[in-house]
């Protein structure tokens, strides 16, 4: 059976690419510290020696739209083109093409349906920065095949937080039941507190540093039940109007497992939002 080589949860900050490549007067003062943290984070994936990446993210109204909106969707295709015109325009993100791993995608769809997750699928999916940002930060050579898994954290009505955790738990079992000798890393990205298009956006810190502190503690310690006891669809409005992206972190806590402490934890307090990076090694730390 396939081996789960690493579980990684991260924020996906679309400005990292521009900040990390800027030079001279254009380079923001926090860029060097940010790059150093990302390089340490990248080493945690490299050390796991993965063959394939399951990438959990959320389309930001790029290909998926309100006339036909899936809650959870698996991309099954030989290739995935990536990034959209408005991401080039606003963030300077490059166009990319990533290989797909169709055997694993087919297995996740079949096994997921049989586990009562009515997963949608796409055979022609253009992926956005929720998946390309962690490729840029964690695997910039973009040489490994991927299986994208999209969640709806964006267009209500949304699935509840517990469903994200359940899908994470199932996703791990599904990967571990894949009849393959490949080493799989599951990488998911979301947000801590975040406000987009509302009064609290683009402040000196994230909109709710206290929520961020608690969220990092829940994730780092694997406190799924403590997190579920406090986090609801309604409660997530109060740290910031885009904080429902935290449910992708909850999905990744489900992948990592109850009470499972992260083997790598790092944060960076930036304007507008806090960055947070976590890695778990289910088979033991290879470093």
């Amino acid at each position, binding site marked *: 059976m396939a081996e789960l080589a690493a579980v990684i949860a991260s924020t996906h900050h679309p400005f990292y690419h521009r900040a990390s490549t800027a030079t001279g007067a254009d380079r923001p003062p926090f860029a060097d510290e940010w790059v150093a943290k990302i390089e340490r984070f990248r080493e945690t994936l490299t050390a796991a020696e993965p063959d394939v990446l399951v990438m959990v993210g959320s389309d930001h109204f790029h290909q998926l739209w*309100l006339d036909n909106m899936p809650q959870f969707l698996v991309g099954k295709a030989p290739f995935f083109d990536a990034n959209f015109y408005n991401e080039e325009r606003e963030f300077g993100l490059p166009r990319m093409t990533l290989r797909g791993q169709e055997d694993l995608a087919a297995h996740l769809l079949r096994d997921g349906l049989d586990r009562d997750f009515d997963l949608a699928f796409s055979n022609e999916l253009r992926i956005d920065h929720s998946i390309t940002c962690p490729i840029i930060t964690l695997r910039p050579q973009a040489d490994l095949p991927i299986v994208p898994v999209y969640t709806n954290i964006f267009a209500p009505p949304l699935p509840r937080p517990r469903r994200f955790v359940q899908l994470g738990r199932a996703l791990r079992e599904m990967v571990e039941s894949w009849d393959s000798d490949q080493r799989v890393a599951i990488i998911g990205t979301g947000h801590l507190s975040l406000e987009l298009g509302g*009064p609290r*956006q683009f402040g000196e810190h994230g909109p709710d540093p206290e929520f961020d502190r608690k969220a990092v503690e829940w994730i780092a310690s694997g406190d799924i039940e403590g997190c579920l006891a406090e986090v609801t669809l309604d409660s997530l*409005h109060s740290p910031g109007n885009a904080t429902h992206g935290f449910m992708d972190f909850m999905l990744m806590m489900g992948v990592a497992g109850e009470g499972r402490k992260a083997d790598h934890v790092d944060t960076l307090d930036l304007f507008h939002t806090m960055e947070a990076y976590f890695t778990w090694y289910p088979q033991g730390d290879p470093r």
Partner: protein
Amino acid sequence: MSRYLLDKFLYTVDRDPELVERYRADPAGTVEWWEAEMAGRLLNCTGDERTTWLSFTEDERRALREHDHVTLFQMGAHPFLTLTLFIAMFERDHGPLEYQRAYGKAMAHIPMPYPDITT
């Protein structure tokens, strides 16, 4: 009121570089043209399969014509769509992050909970 149609306007304009410029330069003309030609276009179907029943209220037309992001927020337009499109149109006229911060400050009087964005 149709939050869905407001979102559809913001979505279809934001993803088209020519429409972004047209909406910046001629908001009234773009909104009138869009409602007549684009509002009923079912995005994943051929042009003949038009939706027959979608239209804006006069208040929605006015908010779009006036580039009034505060009213759009209060109407429950999806804030990510509004922000992304308005940054594309107006960030160029300001210093770094100046536009984004002014955009938020203009909404400082809006209390929690924010308007529902469910469609």
